[in-house]
């Protein structure tokens, strides 16, 4: 089995401002994200040889990308893999280029969540009438918080305070990004005292419901410098699908996800990473809820199992910390238009590795990853990028 390391590079990216984009359709957002990527890469629609588009529920088939962009009858495929959908578009595009079939391809992700009339992603999931009749995102991730607090002996107060610090950090980072949905700082007290959505998760423990689109232009690594001086190279990409709904999984501990660990192992192995905490410069991870970010620290090998609280308390993952995480505000503050998120996260890694992250710029950024965790949850994807080959 070969590694994807240094076979493909991203040479252009775009991201439409995330938010409640009442005045924009999916098509409008796609056009803005993709034309920013065109401009960034110095290409136009006729340079794109194939495309992958990710959306969970805002469009159908490849034509949802072909139509707004008027791409001229090229192969376009819609992909969907829960919240890893954006990553899935990137992943398929990267493998198609790596096999030599295409030289220049487009990956785009988008979601229009604010046309439903309700906040959140709704209640009730699954393909059976009664099995998951009232399942919600917050309700499920609250299971992790409850069990994590119980397993590691955190009182309700300690547990709430630990995850609240993650919300404070991500809101701070988001306030420094002009494209984030929420550009406002919050205090620890605000987070702790916010109305409960699904105990123990309060309003500020949950990411927003957001519209957005993001895009990437991908080419062969050996062609990358023809497009720009600072391409970003794909070092590894791992994807893991869980074979049973965690809610019914016998023996599941509800304090972390094996699919996260499996996706991380795949990506780290391809990228040749031995100690992710030391080697990674930054990580943009799937903080759909604050508790999710906490367990991701452990699943991705940044904190020892059961000890993420120590790193949170030490400020390890702040912009100024040892390993900055969610430097753009994360899902929490930047927003989570599902199909767009994997590419939006990669957009921040791309800008940081190019040294173009403005007030959020971290020092000596060399290696970064983006991570999504999707579904009930049942799928995880991790992509590692670097700013130089080798």
């Amino acid at each position, binding site marked *: 089995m070969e590694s994807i390391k240094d076979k493909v590079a991203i040479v252009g990216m775009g991201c439409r401002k995330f938010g409640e984009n009442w005045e924009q359709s999916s098509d409008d957002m796609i056009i803005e994200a993709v034309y920013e990527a065109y401009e960034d890469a110095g290409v136009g629609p006729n340079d794109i040889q194939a495309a992958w588009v990710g959306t969970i529920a805002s469009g159908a088939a490849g034509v949802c990308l072909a139509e707004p962009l008027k791409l001229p009858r090229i192969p376009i495929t819609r992909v969907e893999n829960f919240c890893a959908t954006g990553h899935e578009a990137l992943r398929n595009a990267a493998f198609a280029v790596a096999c030599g079939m295409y030289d220049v391809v487009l990956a785009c992700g988008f979601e229009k969540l604010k046309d*439903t*009339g*309700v*906040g*959140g*992603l*709704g*209640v*009730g*999931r699954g*393909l*059976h*009438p*009664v*099995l*998951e*009749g*009232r*399942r*919600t995102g*917050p*309700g*499920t991730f*609250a*299971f*992790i*918080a*409850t*069990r994590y607090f*119980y397993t590691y002996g955190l009182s309700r107060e300690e547990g709430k305070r630990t995850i609240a610090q993650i919300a404070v950090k991500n809101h701070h980072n988001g306030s420094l990004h002009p494209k984030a949905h929420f550009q406002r700082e919050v205090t620890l007290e605000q987070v702790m005292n916010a*109305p*409960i*959505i*699904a*105990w*123990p*998760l309060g309003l500020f423990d949950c990411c927003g419901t957001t519209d957005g689109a993001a895009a990437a232009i991908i080419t062969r690594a050996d062609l990358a410098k023809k497009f720009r001086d600072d391409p970003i190279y794909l070092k590894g990409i791992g994807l893991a699908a869980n*074979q*049973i*709904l965690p*809610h*019914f*999984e*016998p*023996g*599941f501990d*509800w304090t972390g996800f094996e699919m996260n660990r499996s996706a991380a192992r795949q990506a780290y192995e391809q990228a040749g990473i031995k100690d992710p905490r030391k080697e990674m410069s930054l990580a943009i991870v799937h903080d759909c809820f604050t508790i999710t970010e906490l367990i991701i620290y452990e699943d991705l090998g940044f904190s020892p199992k059961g000890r993420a609280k120590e790193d949170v308390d030490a400020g390890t993952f702040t912009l100024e910390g040892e390993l900055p995480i969610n430097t753009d505000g994360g899902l929490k503050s930047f927003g989570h238009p599902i199909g767009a998120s994997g590419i939006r996260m990669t957009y921040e890694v791309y800008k940081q590795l190019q040294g173009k992250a403005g007030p959020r710029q971290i020092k000596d950024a060399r290696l970064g990853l983006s991570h999504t965790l999707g579904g009930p949850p049942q799928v995880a994807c991790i992509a590692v990028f670097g700013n130089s080959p080798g």
Partner: protein
Amino acid sequence: MAGIKSYGAYIPYHRLSRSEFAKAWGGIGLPGERAVASADEDSLTMAVEAAFDCTKGMDGAKLDGLFFATTTSPYKEKQCSTIIASVLDMDKEIRTGDFTTSLRSGTTALRAALDAVRAGPAKNIVVTAADCRIGFPYSTQEQSYGDGAASLLVGDSDIIAEVEDCYSVSDELTDVWRRDSDQFVREWEDRWVIMHGYSKNVSQAVSTIMKRNNLSAKDLAKAVIYGPDPRSHGGLMRRLGFDPQTQVQDTFFNAVGNTGSASALMMLVAALEEAKPGDRLIFSSYGDGADAFLLRVTEQIEKVRDRRGAKTHLASKAMLPSYGKYLVARNLVELPPAAGLRGMGSATVMWRTKNWVLSCHASKCRKCGLVTYPPQRVCYGCQSKDEFDEVNLSREQGKLFTYSLDNLAATGINPPVIQSVVEFEGGARFYCMMTDADPQAVEVNMPLEMTFRKIHEFANFHNYFWKCRPPREIPAEGGK
């Protein structure tokens, strides 16, 4: 000899003090409290509970029939006893029947079951009766009615109470009724109803049985006789010569309310709970006539003492705080629309999956022993294909592995939804909602049992499924 082999009952967890009706409407409430079924309960789910209690420790496959009695069937067209039989994990080669529309339907079903067993070849027939009748808002009936269920197992061996004689009288009068379009029960003037309906018919039934068996009141250990209200019941008992202190079975008017077609059966369950071998009981119900039965309790009664019956269910309770919560529990008010509630309804999906939706089956791998719900064709533990047996989780004990108090999920219903992951002793995990629990008392590792409830109405039929709840038990001394 056909007779009663076992008994069971069900009284909803929630009660409402009748003073709350007075608070809402003014005036003076009736004494006592009434049982109020939760919003996820109906007569079918309560009948399931009573039947489970009655058949505790028994294999559903050994039961030959199930009769369901109610005046408040969740369906006008569609049999409910087939659903209940599936939940009890009974075989297909059984007889089922719904006995409806009369207050007397519970004892009508009992008599039909006795006749069926006498005629053979059926040996074990479950009779389960439940009602959740609703009186007009601001009426006496709103206070006097209660929700509940009772069940008897009829058979020809291991009899706990022999049925020595039966008598039925049919009488036509429009005393209490609901047309097919009515939600609330209507009644004609009560003086006439009591005089020419209740007292006359029950007197005739009880007197006839006693006379033809050469019995006088003092020969009977207990008179288990339906009563629509304490005054009418007490008057009739005096006229029949029973001692109110020692011989008259309480109607549960003050603790539960009038449970309609289940009422007489629930009284019988309570009488059997206290009965001694050799006791003779006269048992009678009323509704469009009357049924009466003469029973003799046997030594076998000691073998069914572990049923929850009326006693445990009475003691296991929580008070509803207000009339408003009663309106919500009985679906009498429309809550804000269930914004964002998504889902599908499909008769074919429910039919295809009834072994786990209704019968609560999990798969148990023959190779590695892993128990998984819902059943998995390829084992999650060892990937062996189609190598499993189905095991039933419905009566298994579990504990809470993790939970959430979910306000978002409670859109359109009473918040919060207690999202729960139950872990059974055999290792199976079950994700469901918790019902009939105090959200503030929920904690990891608390013991849980399964309960069959109504989930939603997608596709315009009743979608039933399992929830978990803290076990219904008599609270320890000093408990709340």
